[in-house]
């Protein structure tokens, strides 16, 4: 078991896969996550994460990934999902603006 230190982990949520059950937010001992107004889990206090792994193990949709901040070796499958997660609706917004404009 790794040493539980705060601020060592990066928590990523894939919004496309999250169904908003709220298990991660309810049971997180450090209250890192919350459900936003759309019912999806969002990371609000990443610096408090102690890397206990509860959210990652109990997410029924495999939508949460906790990894060390320094780790750059992410598998290709996850990298594609991460790219999608970092820009969830950016493309859609631009398109809608163009259409309106």
């Amino acid at each position, binding site marked *: 078991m790794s040493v539980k230190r705060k601020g060592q982990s990066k928590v990523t949520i894939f919004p496309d*896969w999250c169904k908003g059950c709220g298990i991660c937010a309810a*049971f997180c001992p450090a209250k890192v996550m919350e459900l936003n107004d759309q019912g999806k889990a969002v990371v609000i206090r990443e610096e408090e994460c102690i890397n206990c792994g509860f959210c990652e*193990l*109990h997410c*029924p949709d*495999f939508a949460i*990934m906790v990894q060390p901040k320094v780790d750059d070796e992410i598998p290709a499958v996850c990298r594609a999902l991460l790219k999608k997660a970092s820009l969830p609706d950016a493309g859609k917004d631009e398109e809608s603006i163009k259409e309106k404009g």
Partner: protein
Amino acid sequence: MADIKGTQLIHEYLRHNKKFPHVFCAGCGHGIVLGSLIRSIHGLGLAKDNVCIVAGIGCSGRLAAYVDFNTVHTTHGRALTFATGIKMAKPNMHVIVVMGDGDSMAIGGNHLIHAARRNIGVTALILNNNIYGMTGGQCSPTTPAGSYSMTTPMGQMEQSFDCVELCTAAGANYVARGSVFHVNKLDSMIMEGITNPGFGVVEILSPCFTQYGRKNKFKSPVDMYHALKSKVTPLERFNAIPEAERGERVPSGVFVKKDKPGLEEKFYEMAARCQGGE
């Protein structure tokens, strides 16, 4: 792939050409079981080609579609019969059967007790959510007495099956019960079930909020996980509590662990003996 873990590991074992996110409702325990199954297989170091997942019908039957092993999606209640055939034909294959409570104890009840009696070397994961989830929330053989469902709006009057006692009495080699809240223990139970010879059963308590929880006064999926956390008690501690004080507690842990040889081992031994004698 040795150093990856958690969600990264699970993504490596999924069939990404299938439609994701999966079909399970928000807060369904089946997704957690899927993760646990993948971690167990990875933990044992089994090759993908050496594992066969056989699933029946229902919500739990969808599990087989998402993982990148040899998979069979079979008819209702007959998952164990297909698995028996696969195991007898390929005794070195690790055959894992994923069934719901209806699949295993209602329509497939006869197959379950006879698979346990034969002691065929497959591992059965019984995902018990106390209800027929996919077909509209009818009461199942494991719906607790007094609880509500679509077909028992005034409360269930019948007694429910205890899967562990059923399989123990029928003669299974390995019987355990875990829950989706206690995931690390569940991982170890599935790993032990796969490695133990003969018929292994792991009953997994997996809450269904959509069909069971909403009718039984649970306000959210989280409430069901809180209930699971408080109800499920390790076997040693459960036995230490006096019977009058047990209340709604459910024992979890390994109930039976025997080393009797499986049917396929006996069969191939007999075949070798017959060939040698000719």
